[in-house]
């Protein structure tokens, strides 16, 4: 089980004193958060991608992630999410492969479609084509990483003839990809088709969405023959604020919650905590709540926490990381390991992927021979052949 920190890089005034960090402060703070996350025992740091205020999450995450790669030892560097809809897949292929070399493979990425409509037109795309863009772009990205020379023609970018994306992925093994989605079954299907991972951000939504989407992804993962449903790769988000005394946690976090850009001035802290994974309380409460996620989705591979948001001062964020490291992560690691079936895989690392490829066991998009998807495809093909012979 991997545990990580993910950030959206929001610049939000601290509602208790009005302090607004400068962009420079917030960017430097992001670096310190990532480095501290490694020090206290987190496995993963992931940054969002933004193109508009009030966010300082990078427009191109490898800029930040490469810098972090140089300053960390073990941390896996990831995204939460990078936009597969408005980014050129060629640039994604090149930038993340380059990052992978610099980071010695400590890289994976989560793809998303983006959370603000105007981003699409800024990059000349049509938001109504969000899903088709995600489908076509990722298919190209996948091919650019897996094929040395690509001939390609699609709907949304210029054709490519005899094109080689450089550098080639480290050890000819591209970074692992998580497909992030909240409500679009097409994206769960996409993750399953390729045998990639599925990330549900989980943090703002009623748990029913999370459960339904993960179940769909798992079923389809099995359908495509990449493994059994319970072996599919699932990552979830979560968010927490802790104090050793749970009333004090609520008292301290309430002004930040009440004024947070995404849910402030809406539901009460209590109602929101009831309906979503937000946990404000003692470390033990955070442990108990996080362990519940496994009851929703089954044994899973990665748990990300949103910690630095809503105007919380940097000092507080670093203290929260300390508390996670000291009181929460060791217990979660132990508890999640209990009763975990031996055939549920860990979250993929670069070494694992390289080894898997050597064994010839990398997933085959659309399903390898013997899968239900494969026999269904054979059946369709036979029918088509018969029909064309009859003609």
């Amino acid at each position: 089980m991997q545990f990580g920190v993910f950030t959206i890089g929001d610049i939000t005034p601290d509602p208790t004193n009005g302090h607004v960090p400068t962009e420079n402060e917030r960017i430097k703070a992001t670096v310190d958060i990532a480095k501290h996350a490694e020090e206290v025992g987190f496995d993963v740091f992931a940054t969002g991608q933004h193109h508009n205020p009030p966010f300082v999450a990078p427009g191109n995450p490898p800029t930040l992630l490469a810098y972090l790669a140089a300053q960390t030892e073990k941390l896996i560097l990831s995204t939460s999410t990078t936009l597969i809809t408005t980014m050129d897949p060629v640039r994604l292929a090149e930038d993340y492969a380059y990052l992978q070399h610099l980071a010695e493979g400590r890289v994976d990425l989560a793809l998303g479609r983006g959370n603000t409509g105007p981003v699409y037109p800024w990059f000349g795309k049509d938001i109504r084509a969000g899903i088709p863009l995600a489908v076509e772009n990722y298919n190209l990205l996948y091919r650019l990483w897996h094929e040395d020379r690509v001939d390609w023609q699609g709907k949304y970018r210029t054709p490519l003839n005899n094109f080689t994306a450089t550098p080639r992925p480290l050890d000819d093994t591209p970074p692992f990809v998580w497909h992030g989605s909240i409500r679009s079954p097409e994206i769960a299907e996409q993750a399953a088709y390729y045998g990639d991972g599925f990330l549900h951000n989980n943090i703002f939504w009623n748990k029913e969405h999370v459960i339904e989407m993960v179940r769909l992804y798992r079923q389809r993962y099995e359908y495509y023959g990449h493994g059994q449903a319970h072996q599919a790769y699932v990552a979830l988000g979560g968010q927490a604020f802790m104090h050793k005394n749970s009333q004090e946690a609520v008292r301290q976090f309430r002004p930040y919650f009440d004024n947070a850009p995404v849910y402030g001035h809406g539901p009460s802290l209590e109602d929101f905590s009831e309906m979503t994974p937000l946990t404000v309380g003692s470390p033990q409460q955070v442990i108990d709540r996080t362990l519940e996620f496994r009851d929703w989705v089954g044994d899973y591979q990665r748990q990300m926490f949103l910690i630095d948001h809503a105007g919380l001062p940097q000092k507080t964020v670093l203290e929260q990381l300390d508390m996670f490291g000291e009181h929460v992560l060791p217990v979660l690691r132990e508890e999640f390991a209990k009763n975990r079936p031996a055939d549920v895989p860990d979250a993929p690392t670069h070494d694992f992927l390289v080894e898997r490829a050597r064994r010839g066991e990398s997933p085959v998009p659309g399903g390898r021979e013997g899968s239900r998807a494969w026999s269904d495809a054979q059946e369709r093909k036979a029918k088509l052949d018969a029909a064309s012979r009859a003609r």
Partner: protein
Amino acid sequence: MTLERNDPRRLTVVSGGLGDPSQSRMLADRLAEATSETLAQSGIASHVHVIELRLLATAISDSLIAHTITPGLQDALDQVMGADGVIAVSPTFKASYSGLFKSFWDLVDEEEFAGTPVLLGATGGTARHSLVIDQAMRPLFAYLKALTSPVSVYAAADDWGDVYGSSDSTKTAPIHERIHHAGATFANLINAIPSRPRASKHHPTEIEVTPFEQLLNG
């Protein structure tokens, strides 16, 4: 799932009234009674479920800001989307339905709701607002692709004390007759159309999935 002719029907009443007691609630209840009576004459029982939006006001506005839906609000949405007929009544504010009424309908899944028979009603201080149903409510429910009943009821405050011909505005029919007429028309509409299978959140169905090859070759 097609209803047998005599299967009971589920009527969901949505009252946008903000007071207690409320004129809109009163009109909604009377419309439900009138509908049930006519259905009963055809041997059809009806189960009436009433939703008072005022009790969900905070949950509705919260859901617009965060994406959270309280269990009570989810139940109301399920009742609306699973009904065989919906009676929707709003008070008139500034020549239209109330903002709360609109916000509730904003949360309804239009695909699930499409095709639902709906009886419209509105209340207001004076008869001068009586076009609110045709000018504001019908377009909203047209967008939602509801089967709106052609006869609706607008009730002004003084309608509740009126009888035939007591004033210029009731030279036509007093309110109980208009309610009866609207209810009867709505009951016949419900009775005439076969119920169609509608996904209900109470019985979660598998999410439909488009095979990826199809998405890829889209």
